[in-house]
C-alpha cells in the first residue's frame, strides 16, 4: 500500500507534534494522579507484610491440610520467625495484622514472642500451647496465618462489605455487632441522593431564570451563583456551623421572633448535613443545566404556543425534555461529588451522618490500616463507575452536556 505508507509518513510529524503537546499533562496526570491512586487501590488486595515478617511460617504452613492443629515443624517455623521478629521489633506489626481478624490477638502475639525469645530449643508446639491454650491450641489462628501470609488477600474487600472468611475458607457474614459498612454505603448513597434531588429542585428554576433573563441581569445573578463557588469549602461549612448551632444565628432569630420557645437542634444531624451539602453543591447542578438551557432557542416555546399549547403544557412537553441532558449532567456531577463528601458531614453531621470518606480518612490517618482505607475507597469508586454505566445505559453519556 504505497498510498497508505505515504499518508503515514505525511502525518507522522503532525502526530508527533500533537503527542509532544499533550505529553506534559499526560505525564503529570500519570505521576501525580493515576499512579498513586492505582497503587493505593492495589493495597486493598495486596498486603505482603505478614508473609514478609513470617517467612519460615509461610513456607512451613503450606504442608498443613487445615484439619486439627499443625505439626511441630510449623510451630518451630513460627518460633523462629517470632524470635527474629522480637529482635527486629516487628512483632507488633504481626500482632496488629492478626488482630484485625481476631480481636485481642495482638497482646497474645507480643507475649508469645517474648516467651519464644527466651526458649533455646523445642519442642515448640507444647511450649506454645502452654503459653496460651486459647490461641495456639485452636486451629483458628493457623487458618488465618495460612491464608494471610500469601501476598494477595480478599480480607479487606470482604470486610468492607461486612463479610469475612470462616475457618474453612468460606465467605460468611460478619457478626451483626461488627457489620457497619453496608449501612454506611447505603447512608452515603442516600445522602448523596437527597442532596442531588434538593439541588435539582432548587437549581432548575434558577437555571431557567439565568437562561431567560437579559444578559445584563443574568450576569449579575450568575455572579451570585458563583460567589459561593469561589469560596473555600471549609469556610462555607463553618459558616453553616455558625448559622445552625444551638446558640447560632437561626436559633437566636427564631427565639427573638417568638416562633420558638426552646432552641432546636439544627446541627449535628442529617438535616444539617443535607442542608449544608445542598448549598455547596448548588452551582454544580445549576451550571450544566444553565448551559443546556442557554442553547435552547426561544423559538421552540413560541412554536409550541403558536400550535396551541398553553404555557405550562408547552414547557413540560417541549422545553423540559430538551433540558434533560443538562439535568443528567448536573445531577450526575452533584451525585458523584456528594458521594465523596468528608469535611461537611464531619463538621455539620452527627455520628450517624458520617459518610464513607470519613472512614477512609479514619483508616488512613488514625488506624493506619491502609488496606481497609483502600478497600473502602475502591468500593466507592466502583460504585460510582457502576452508576455511571447505568446512567449511560439509561440516558446515554453522549447526551450529557457540561457546557
Amino acid at each position, binding site marked *: 500500500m504505497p498510498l497508505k505508507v505515504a499518508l503515514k509518513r505525511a502525518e507522522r510529524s503532525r502526530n508527533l507534534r500533537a503527542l509532544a503537546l499533550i505529553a506534559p499533562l499526560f505525564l503529570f496526570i500519570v505521576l501525580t494522579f493515576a499512579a498513586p491512586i492505582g497503587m493505593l487501590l492495589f493495597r486493598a488486595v495486596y498486603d505482603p507484610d505478614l508473609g514478609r515478617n513470617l517467612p519460615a511460617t509461610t513456607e512451613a504452613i503450606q504442608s498443613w491440610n487445615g484439619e486439627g492443629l499443625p505439626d511441630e515443624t510449623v510451630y518451630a517455623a513460627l518460633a523462629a520467625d517470632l524470635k527474629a521478629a522480637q529482635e527486629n521489633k516487628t512483632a507488633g506489626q504481626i500482632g496488629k495484622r492478626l488482630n484485625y481478624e481476631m480481636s485481642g490477638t495482638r497482646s497474645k502475639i507480643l507475649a508469645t514472642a517474648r516467651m519464644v525469645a527466651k526458649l533455646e530449643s523445642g519442642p515448640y508446639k507444647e511450649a506454645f500451647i502452654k503459653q496460651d491454650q486459647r490461641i495456639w491450641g485452636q486451629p483458628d489462628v493457623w487458618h488465618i496465618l495460612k491464608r494471610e501470609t500469601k501476598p494477595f488477600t480478599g480480607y479487606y474487600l470482604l470486610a468492607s462489605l461486612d463479610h469475612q472468611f470462616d475457618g474453612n475458607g468460606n465467605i460468611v457474614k460478619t457478626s451483626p455487632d461488627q457489620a457497619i459498612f453496608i449501612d454506611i454505603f447505603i447512608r452515603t448513597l442516600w445522602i448523596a441522593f437527597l442532596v442531588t434531588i434538593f439541588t435539582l429542585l432548587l437549581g432548575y428554576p434558577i437555571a431557567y431564570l439565568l437562561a431567560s433573563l437579559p444578559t445584563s441581569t443574568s450576569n449579575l445573578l450568575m455572579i451570585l451563583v458563583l460567589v459561593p463557588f469561589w469560596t473555600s469549602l471549609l469556610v462555607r461549612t463553618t459558616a453553616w456551623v455558625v448559622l445552625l448551632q444551638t446558640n447560632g444565628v437561626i436559633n437566636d432569630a427564631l427565639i427573638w421572633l417568638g416562633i420558638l420557645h426552646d432552641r432546636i437542634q439544627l446541627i449535628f444531624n442529617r438535616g444539617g448535613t443535607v442542608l449544608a451539602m445542598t448549598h455547596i453543591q448548588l452551582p454544580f447542578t445549576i451550571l450544566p443545566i444553565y448551559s443546556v438551557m442557554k442553547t435552547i432557542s426561544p423559538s421552540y416555546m*413560541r412554536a409550541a404556543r403558536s400550535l396551541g399549547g398553553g404555557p405550562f403544557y408547552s414547557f413540560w412537553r417541549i422545553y423540559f425534555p430538551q433540558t434533560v441532558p443538562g439535568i443528567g449532567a448536573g445531577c450526575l456531577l452533584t451525585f458523584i461529588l456528594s458521594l465523596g463528601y468528608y469535611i461537611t458531614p464531619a463538621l455539620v453531621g452527627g455520628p450517624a451522618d458520617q459518610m464513607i470518606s470519613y472512614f477512609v480518612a479514619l483508616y488512613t490517618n488514625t488506624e493506619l490500616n491502609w488496606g481497609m482505607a483502600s478497600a473502602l475507597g475502591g468500593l466507592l469508586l466502583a460504585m460510582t463507575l457502576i452508576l455511571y454505566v447505568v446512567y449511560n445505559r439509561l440516558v446515554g453519556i453522549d447526551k450529557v452536556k457540561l457546557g
Partner: protein
Amino acid sequence: MAGHVPYDARANEGPPQCLLRGYLLWLWKIGCRHGVSQMEARSLDRPMSAQGQAVSGKLDGQELDGQRGDGKALVRFKDVQKSYDGETLVVKRLSLDIRQGEFLTLLGPSGSGKTTTLMMLAGFETPTHGEIELNGSSITHMPPEKRNIGMVFQNYALFPHMTVAENLSFPLEVRKYNKAEIQARIRKSLEMVRLDAFANRRPGQLSGGQQQRVALARALVFEPELVLMDEPLGALDKQLREHMQIEIRHLHQSLGITVVYVTHDQSEALTMSDRIAVFNDGIIHQLASPSELYERPSNAFVAQFIGENNRLHGKVAQLNGQGCTVELSAGFNVQALPVNVDGQGSPVTLSLRPERLKLDPQDGTMPNLFNGEVVELIYLGDHTRVRVAACGADDLIVKVPNSEGVPAYQPGQPVRIGWRLEDCRALAS
C-alpha cells in the same frame, strides 16, 4: 415621554379609518393638546409614510379595494405602535387590513419593524398602543395559543426531541383530537408536502428543505385560517428556495388560506405575493401588488428597495398636469412623471429602471435624450449591463438585452441615452 404616545381615553377612539385628512386633523388635535413630539413631527413631515397604503392608493390614481373595511378583512391592525425600550418606536402607527385568502408579504430591510408586526399578530409581542382584530374581534391581549394561527419560524423550530409525526401531532393532541383522527391528519399533511416516508425520522436527520416542509406541514396540520411565515426560506440555498417559493404558493392557492409572509428578499416577495407591504423604519411605505410596486413606486425608498434603480437628483423647475420638468444639479432638464412632488422648487429624486433606458434611440421617440459615454460593459448572458456617464452622473446602468446579439459598444465610446417621460418618476426626496 410626555406627549409621545397619546395614552388617554381619546386614543382608543382611533383615527377616522384611512382618511388622510381626518387622520391629520386628529394628529393635529393631539399635537395641540400634548405638544407635538419628535416622532409625530416627523410623521407630519411625511404624511405619505405615516399613512402608507391609503396615500399610495390615491396618488397612483388607483383605488386599492378592501382597504375600507368592507367586511372582508380577516386581520385588521388599528393604529398599532410598538416600542421595546420605551424610547424608540419599532412600529409606528400601523394601520393595515389583511384580506381573507390573500398572500400578503411584509417586505423590508432588517430592523424595519416587519418581524415585530408579525410577532404582534402571532401574539408573542403586545402592542404598546392600538388594536389588532381577527375576524372582527380584538385579539390584542389574547395569548398566542388561543389565536389558532399557524406559524412557520425562521429556523423552523421543529422540536428536536420528537419525530416528524410527533411534531405534527402536537397541535392535534392539544386540540384533543382522537387518535385515529390525528393519524389521518398527520398522513394527509405529510402527503401534502411529500414527506410521508419520513414520519419516524427526527428533525436532525432531515435536510434543510425537508425540515422546511415539515415546519410547513406542522403549521397547516390543524387547519388554521391564517398562517404566518417569518423568513421561512432564509436558510435554504438559492435553487431550493426558488423551488419552495413555488411550492408554498401552490399550497396557498389550493388550501385557500390567508398567508402573511415576512421576508427581506424582494425577488421572493415579488414571486409569491398578492400584495406586498414595504416596511422601513417602522412604517409601511407602500402597500400594493408586485407589478404596481415595481412599475409605480410611490416614493424614493420603495423605488430603491424594489428592483434595480438609477437615481438622479434635481429640483422641480416646472409642473403641469401630465408631467414636470426637473432641473438636475448638473444643469440638465429632464421631463418626468410627478408622483409625489411638493410643488415647484422642491427637491426630487428621479427614479429610472435600467431596462427602460435606451441607448441610441431613434430620434423623436424619446422626450429625454442626452449625450453620454460608455464607461463599462458587463456581460451577463441574457443581457449586457452598460454603465454610462451622462447627465452629470457616471453610474447610469442600462440593461441591453442580448436577444439580437451582443451590443457592440466599447468603453469610452460616445453614446446617446434616452427614456420616456412615464418611465422617469419624480419622487420627493
